[in-house]
């Protein structure tokens, strides 16, 4: 038990050193143009299709679920508004983040872990190249930038698929669905969700690259790092979601 506490404390300490060094290396931003572009691409393309697919189902089930919940005491004209709000504030950012944690987070941890055990990280260091600047910073920046873009896509797909299901099965015409959204739309619904997604993108990139960067010897070490990266990224996303939910909407 004590050993686990010690390991957890040490891991957290190492992670924050990593973060601090990344922040310091922001000064040398122009040196990482190439890895940064690569990471943007990696982050964006790796989960694009899955996010879109998952979001379409999220939208469809939201229609059915919301209709079931409100049909006895509110007009179905309000359904579009209800779905849009829950998607923008909560479902879009959270579902996207969980998918990204599984795809991109695992990928980051596996890639960096492999670089660690094959001494590629040491090799960078011997060349006088700051491995944190070169490997961690581009991933953190890519996470912060790409996550909101993915969430915009997720929100859009969810709301459109919800509108389609509502029109087909609940007899709510498009015009009613979207005028409901417009009537009660507050910018903070959307921007609060996007703000969350920035935090999620950062958390996933930070947690996953820490586990990879400090992976232990052997192929087994990389496996452990990858599993833990996904597990802790997802956990921290949900925790942050609650905290930010309280701050933004509480």
């Amino acid at each position: 038990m004590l050993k686990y506490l010690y390991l957890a404390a040490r891991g957290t300490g190492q992670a924050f050193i990593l973060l601090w060094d990344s922040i310091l290396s922001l000064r040398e931003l122009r040196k990482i143009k190439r890895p940064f572009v690569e990471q943007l691409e990696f982050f964006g393309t790796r989960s694009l299709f899955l996010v879109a697919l998952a979001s379409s189902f999220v939208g469809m089930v939201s229609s059915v679920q919301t209709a079931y919940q409100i049909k006895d005491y509110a007009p179905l004209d309000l359904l579009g508004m209800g779905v849009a709000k829950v998607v923008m504030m909560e479902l879009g950012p959270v579902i996207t983040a969980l998918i990204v944690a599984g795809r991109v987070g695992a990928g980051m941890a596996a890639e960096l872990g492999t670089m660690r055990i094959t001494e590629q990280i040491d090799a960078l260091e011997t060349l006088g190249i700051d491995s944190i600047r070169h490997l961690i910073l581009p991933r953190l920046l890519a996470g912060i930038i790409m996550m909101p873009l993915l969430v915009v896509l997720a929100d859009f797909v969810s709301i459109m698929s919800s509108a389609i299901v509502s029109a087909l099965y609940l007899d709510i015409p498009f015009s009613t669905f979207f005028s409901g959204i417009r009537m009660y739309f507050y910018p903070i619904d959307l921007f609060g969700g996007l703000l969350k997604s920035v935090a999620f993108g950062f958390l996933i990139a930070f947690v996953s690259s820490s586990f990879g960067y400090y992976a232990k010897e052997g192929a087994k070490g990389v496996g452990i790092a990858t599993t833990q990266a996904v597990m802790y990224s997802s956990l921290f996303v949900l925790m942050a979601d609650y905290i930010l939910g309280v701050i933004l909407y509480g």
Partner: protein
Amino acid sequence: MIEVINLKKRFGEKEVLKGVNLTIEDGEDIAILGKSGEGKSVFLKHIIGLLKPDEGSVLVDGIDITKLSKRELYQIRRSFSYVFQGAALFDSLTVFENIALPLRERAFSEREIKDRVKEALSLVDLDGIEELYPAALSGGMKKRVGLARAIVSKPRYLLYDEPTTGLDVITAWRINKLIKKINKMEGTTGILVTHDIRGALYTSDKIALLSDGVIVEIIESSRYKEAKTEKLREFLEAGGFLD
């Protein structure tokens, strides 16, 4: 000049280096022999600051590199190259980009980078593989590309971690010849870690034996027959150099 003074390092309960002392003059080439797991790689990593000692110091031209900040250390590393035991090529880069990286970091022109990479590849007998990725190379080719990456920046200090281990005899001997050639170049100081006794005697001015966490004996390669300690004699015997 590199001076290692009373270097100690432990991992948990395991004491790997127990007070290593060694001085390497400029232009001198030394081979460090030792059995598997004696701490040869750990020792070599201390010389370039990849590992920090628990005690002791490593002086490079009089500067104690164990006390330097990250930035200062990067500066010192400009005059070093390290050949990794497992090559440590960057998977995501082509052979060309792997070898070019040290030069890019030193802001060479594109033209010069092209020329130097070509030259380095031809030195290791691997012309024309610039566009391949490391995954497409055999173990021996990877090691040679690692060597090319090390020599391309023409460093003053070259550290080799078992550059011939696991290679067929022909390739291994070619690499030994190459290391000798590099070592003989003006102003380079080579530290070769190996258990290939023949390669050590052939490439280096001196051989040293690392055993049980300390340097047991250092002797000039040409006078290996005069080795005094039982341990070094055993090593030479095992390699067929003493009877």
